[in-house]
C-alpha cells in the first residue's frame, strides 16, 4: 500500500547532537569575547545570569505559562479545525473544487496581516489573539491532512463494506490509522509554527506572555534577557516535541517496521 508520508526534520534533539551544541556555545563565547560589548552581545554567562534573575525574581514562569496556555489552546483548535477541513477536502472532489483555491490563499496569507486584522476587527482581547493564531495555523494542518485523506485505501473500504463492518470500527481500525501519520506531521509542523505566531500576537497586543516581555526588553535594549527568554522557550518546545510528539509518532508508525 502506498500513501503520502510527510517527513519533517525533527525539532527534538538526539544525544549525538550534544557535542555540536557545545561547539555552538563555545562559538557564542568567542564572538562575545571578540565584540567585547556586553550590551549588544551578552556572553552565555551573562545570559545565564539574566535567566536566573528572571526565574527567581522576574516573571519568567508566569510569562511562559501565559504563552504556553495560548499555544495549547490555539494548537488544539487549529488541529481540530484543520483536520476536519482537510478530511472533507481530501474525501470530496466537490469540496476540493470549491474550496481548494481558498486554502491556497489562506496558506499564503502573511501571519502579520491576519493578526492585525483580527485585532482591528475583534478588539485587543484574548479571543482575537487565539483566533489569529488558529487562522494562521489551520490551513497548514488542512493541507497536510488533505494529502493523508486522499491517500486512504479505497480497496480496504470496499472490503469493510462487503463484510458490513460497523462504521465506528471501520473508523477506528481502518480510517484513523491511515490519517494518523499526516495528523502527526501536521502536529509537528503546527507546533513550531504556533509558538512563533503566538509570540508575534503577544508582542502586538497582549499585556503578558513571552512576546510581551520581549517587546519590553527591546524597549530597554536588554539583549541578555531576550536571549534568556528565547532559550527557555526553545527548551520547553523541544521537550514537548521529544517527550510527547516523537514517542506518539513512533507508536503510530510501529506497524511499518518489518
Amino acid at each position, binding site marked *: 500500500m502506498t500513501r503520502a508520508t510527510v517527513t519533517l526534520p525533527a525539532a527534538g534533539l538526539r544525544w549525538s547532537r550534544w557535542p555540536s551544541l557545545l561547539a555552538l556555545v563555545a562559538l557564542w563565547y568567542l564572538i562575545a569575547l571578540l565584540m567585547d560589548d556586553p550590551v549588544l552581545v551578552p556572553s552565555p554567562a551573562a545570559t545565564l545570569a539574566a535567566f536566573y534573575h528572571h526565574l527567581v525574581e522576574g516573571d519568567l514562569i508566569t510569562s511562559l505559562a501565559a504563552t504556553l496556555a495560548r499555544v495549547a489552546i490555539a494548537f488544539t483548535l487549529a488541529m481540530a479545525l484543520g483536520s476536519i477541513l482537510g478530511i472533507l477536502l481530501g474525501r470530496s472532489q466537490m469540496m476540493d473544487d470549491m474550496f481548494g483555491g481558498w486554502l491556497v490563499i489562506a496558506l499564503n496569507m502573511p501571519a502579520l496581516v491576519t493578526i492585525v486584522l483580527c485585532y482591528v476587527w475583534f478588539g485587543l482581547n484574548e479571543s482575537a489573539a487565539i483566533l489569529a493564531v488558529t487562522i494562521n495555523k489551520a490551513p497548514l494542518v488542512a493541507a497536510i491532512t488533505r494529502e493523508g485523506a486522499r491517500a486512504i485505501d479505497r*480497496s480496504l473500504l470496499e472490503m*469493510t*463494506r462487503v*463484510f*458490513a463492518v460497523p462504521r465506528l470500527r471501520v473508523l477506528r*481500525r481502518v480510517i484513523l490509522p491511515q490519517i494518523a501519520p499526516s495528523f502527526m506531521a501536521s502536529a509537528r509542523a503546527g507546533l513550531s509554527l504556533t509558538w512563533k505566531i503566538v509570540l508575534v500576537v503577544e508582542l502586538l497586543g497582549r499585556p503578558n506572555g513571552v512576546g510581551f516581555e520581549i517587546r519590553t526588553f527591546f524597549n530597554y535594549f536588554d539583549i541578555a534577557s531576550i536571549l534568556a527568554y528565547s532559550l527557555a522557550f526553545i527548551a520547553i518546545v523541544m521537550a514537548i516535541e521529544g517527550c510527547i510528539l516523537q514517542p506518539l509518532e513512533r507508536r503510530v508508525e510501529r*506497524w511499518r517496521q*518489518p
Partner: protein
Amino acid sequence: MKGFELQGITRDFAHPTPHAVLRGIDLTVTAGELLSLVGPSGSGKTTLLRIIAGLDRVFGGKLIWPDGRRPTTAMVFQEPRLVPWLSILDNLLLVAGEASRDEATVALAEVELAGSEHAFPGQLSGGMQRRASLARALLTRPALLLLDEPFISLDAACAGRMRRLLATYWQKHGVTIVLVTHDLREAVELSTRIVALSPQEGRLMKEVPLPLPRPRADAAIDEALAGLRALTDGWPQPSDSSDSASARCGPTTAQTSHFSRARSRFLALSRSIA
C-alpha cells in the same frame, strides 16, 4: 437465503475508451448452490462479482434479491485486501467482532495458518495472505460467499486441501457460493453448475450442470472435463502469438501471469483429450 436473480446486467466503462464489458447477463442463482463462473482473463468475471457484492452500482439491468435486500455476504477478493497494520488475527476480528476470537483462531488453523495469528500481512507470503483472506470470509458464516480466484498462488497440494476445505464448509453450512475461476478442473471438482462468460461479447456462453456425486474422484473429473471442451471455445488459444494474447489480456503483470498459467492448463488439457 432464497437465491437471487440477474436480469439483463450490462456494464460499460468510460475509461480509457468507452467499452462494454457485460452485455445482457441473465442468470438465476439458486439457494445453496456452488456456482462456478469461468471465462478467460478480461471477460468480466470480477466485474460481475463486484456487481453482485454491491460494490458497483452503476450497472444496467436488474439484480433481484427475494427478500428485497442482499443477505449477509462475504468475499475473497482477487487480491487479499488485508489491513496492513492489523495482525492476521485482528484482521479476522475486524470483520467478525472481538467476540469471535476463538473461532478466528480455529479458522486460521483450518487454512494452515496456526502460529501466524500475530504476524502482520506484510510478513506473510502471497499464498498465506490469500488463505488468511479465505479464513476471514469463512469465519463470518455468510449466507452468500463470493470467491474471486481464491486458490491461485497456492502450490497444487495446498490448493487441493483448500478446495476440500471449501467443499466441506459448503456442505456443512449450506451457503450459496459463486466461485470465479480460470481453472476448469477446479470448477468441475467443486461446483454444482458452471457458467462460462464468452471471451469478447460479454455474455454468458454456456451453462453446464454437474450432478456428479461427491467427493469427486480424479477419473470422474477428467471424464467430465473431456465433455466440457466446448466451454473454452473462443478463449485465447495456446497457438495464438503471445503478442495478441497479451494485448487481449490487459496491462497488469499479475493478470498476465495467471492468464498464462490458465493457458498452459488448457494446453495440457487439450493434449490429454486428444
